């Protein structure tokens, strides 16, 4: 398992444990060491993907579109190591928390928008972003990834966490994942997949690039 963390993400000793960490203002009471703050893989799908050694293709400083930013827990870490980060979230309540996170950062742009309707933010989010991070808990996760492919650079990366239970609570997660991957294949070439169960039950991590 290669350890391919982007610049700005490091494994550091915090509170006696080696943990992923980024540099930035604390957000959710996470343990800190100086300016470094721990990135909890159990609270973050992307954190889980880094912890499991996914090759995300990120090296730091990228322009990122984050879909499903929720309260900004993961988006805050992304903004810490990436460049301009657009954070899309649909629900007002978590977006209020996301605003706090964005206030404390220079290049995290919060947008109260529906990730299923990219045309409602294509006038704000720039084209050719280096990475799309997607963690939306709605049905049709593959469709969201497909519709948002318009933002991604040709050699960009989709970093997707598929939540099986959002698609169909009664189906076997493995069947749901197979369907989602098959739908993705129309737009993306899937590079790597791995279950995130160690940190997130019934989730599949996916790294893909546009066809």
């Amino acid at each position, binding site marked *: 398992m290669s350890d391919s963390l982007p610049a700005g993400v490091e494994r550091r000793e915090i509170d006696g444990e080696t943990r992923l960490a980024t540099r930035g203002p604390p957000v959710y009471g996470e343990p800190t060491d100086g300016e470094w703050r721990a990135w909890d893989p159990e609270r973050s799908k992307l954190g889980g993907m880094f912890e499991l050694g996914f090759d995300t293709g990120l090296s730091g400083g990228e322009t990122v579109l984050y879909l499903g930013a929720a309260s900004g827990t993961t988006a805050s870490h992304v903004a810490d190591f990436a460049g*301009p980060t657009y954070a899309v979230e649909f629900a*007002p309540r*978590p977006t209020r928390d996301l*605003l706090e996170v*964005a206030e404390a950062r*220079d*290049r995290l742009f919060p947008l*109260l928008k529906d990730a299923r309707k990219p045309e409602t933010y294509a*006038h704000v989010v720039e*084209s050719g972003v280096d990475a799309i991070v997607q963690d939306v808990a709605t049905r049709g996760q593959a469709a969201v990834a497909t519709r948002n492919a318009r933002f991604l650079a040709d050699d960009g990366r989709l970093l997707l966490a598929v939540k099986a239970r959002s698609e169909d609570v009664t189906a076997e997660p493995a069947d749901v994942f197979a369907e989602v991957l098959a739908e993705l294949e129309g737009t993306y070439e899937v590079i790597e997949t791995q279950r995130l169960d160690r940190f997130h039950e019934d989730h599949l991590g996916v790294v893909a690039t546009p066809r």
Partner: protein
Amino acid sequence: MTTDESDAGWFASVPPDDPGAARDAIDGGSVESPADWPRLAVESGFADDADDYYDRLREATLHATREAVAERERADDRQLIHAVRAMDDCERVANELAERAVEWAGSRFDGVDAGIAGARAIADRKPDDGIDRRVISLASRAAALADERDELAATIDRVAPAVAPNLADMAGPELAARLIALAGGLESLARKPSGTVQVLGAEDALFAHLSGRAPSPKHGIIYTHEFVRGTRPEDRGSAARALAGKLALAARADHYSGEYREVLHEDLRERMATIRARADADGGAEVDDE
């Protein structure tokens, strides 16, 4: 969102340092495809360089999103009730008008289709005389009402999750709005026992039945939920009971705390999986352990 600016960035008609205009542009704008906005903004003189652009974008998105959040959170259950009732009225009247227009048009034109689709087709015709004009005008009003119904549905989709995050997630925005409307408000829904939630909406069906328009009711409005309708008939009672129980809890969580409670949704999913497993077990075919 004028057509000549349909491919322009959010900053196109925003004077520098006008937060209100920026907010309107970010909120209401729409284009099909993104572009290299930072470069275009610099070229158009909106920003001095990319860094300056991102500083302005930061100010604009923070302001626009803060205002949008405040507006959505101000939305209350009364607004949702008005919206869902207006939606139903629009749908009913649109269908009635379309039926009338189609029937009338059938006496004057060939190849007239039924319903809203038929009314839309008639609305696009060219009138030959004064009566044609009336028929076509009537059809276009039916079509416009159908459009208004769709707009109201989209509004409910946006407002319901703000008013009742748990209920909207569990029931879907429309059913959540209907339950709140039937109970007369989120607070009264939160006070109802789950048995009442289970049969909410059956009153309407009963009156429809008594006036001869519908069969006798067996379930309340939650029957429209996939968990009930998608379950085989012999297990629907269990499914409706389980769903109603969790919906009642969701309404209470929404009214008394307003926080999203993941555990409620997990519980319901597990319960539904158990109920649906009965069908598999009876079928005997695809029973296997996880």
